[in-house]
């Protein structure tokens, strides 16, 4: 199947979220995904620890030949966010592609400058495009909520109400 022309830039948090509910591989089949070298370095750091995030990072890195990995010069800097996030922000500006992240601080400081989404966007995308059933999408959202300790946060509540309406 041909990939969608739609591309997304993913940060570490989004990659971890998608891999934690086992849909990263499916996302890579359907969409073109880019990330930065700094994100890859962050994931490599995670692999040094023998915990949940270390294991997820190892699995993500096994798929890295299927992402576009780029370094991006920081031409415009946002002072409230870290260098890694500034690189993602600049890549999003340069390529005019949406950034997908679960970092609320990053979303808050970039939302007026770039297109930005939370990772559950892929649950709705995969459901609407026919790759996931509604029941499976809701089940995966519950799984993600538990893994991320989202409890009743805004991301969970809004995604759930949208999925239930479909």
């Amino acid at each position, binding site marked *: 199947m041909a990939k969608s022309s739609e591309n997304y830039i993913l940060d570490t948090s989004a990659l971890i979220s998608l891999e934690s509910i086992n849909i990263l591989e499916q996302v890579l089949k359907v969409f073109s995904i880019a990330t930065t070298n700094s994100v890859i370095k962050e994931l490599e750091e995670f692999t040094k620890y023998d915990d949940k995030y270390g294991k997820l990072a190892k699995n993500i890195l096994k798929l890295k030949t299927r992402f576009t990995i780029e370094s991006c010069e920081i031409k415009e800097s946002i002072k409230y966010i870290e260098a890694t996030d500034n690189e993602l922000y600049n890549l999003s500006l340069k390529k005019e592609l949406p950034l997908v992240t679960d970092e609320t601080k990053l979303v808050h400081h970039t939302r007026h400058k770039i297109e930005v989404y939370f990772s559950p966007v892929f649950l709705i*995308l995969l459901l609407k*495009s026919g790759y996931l059933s509604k029941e499976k999408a809701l089940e995966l959202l519950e799984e993600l909520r538990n893994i991320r300790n989202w*409890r009743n946060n805004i991301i969970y*509540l809004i995604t759930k109400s949208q999925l239930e309406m479909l």
Partner: protein
Amino acid sequence: METEQFNIRMPKDLVQDLNIISKLLKVNKSEWVKTKLAEEVHEEKNKLLMELSTLYANGMISKEKIEKLVGKGIADEMESIKIIAEKSAKHGLEYGKKLRKLHS
């Protein structure tokens, strides 16, 4: 880190218990209390903000009211999260539908 003095009077029994902990763990009493208090404050703050954001997501409290309760910074961030969560859902719906048509 910038600090501020905060004095509290504690029951004698509690101070004695703290002394026992301090001796057994070989840690400074004040440092131990500071660490435990920081953990508790962090957890309680997150729990209360989560409850507040649930009310906000469900339209049961306004941004203005949140601003009065916890300040502009937190209220603005909650508003951003709500807007982007809604935008993410809208994008998923619209683009997902388009993709389905493309592949059918």
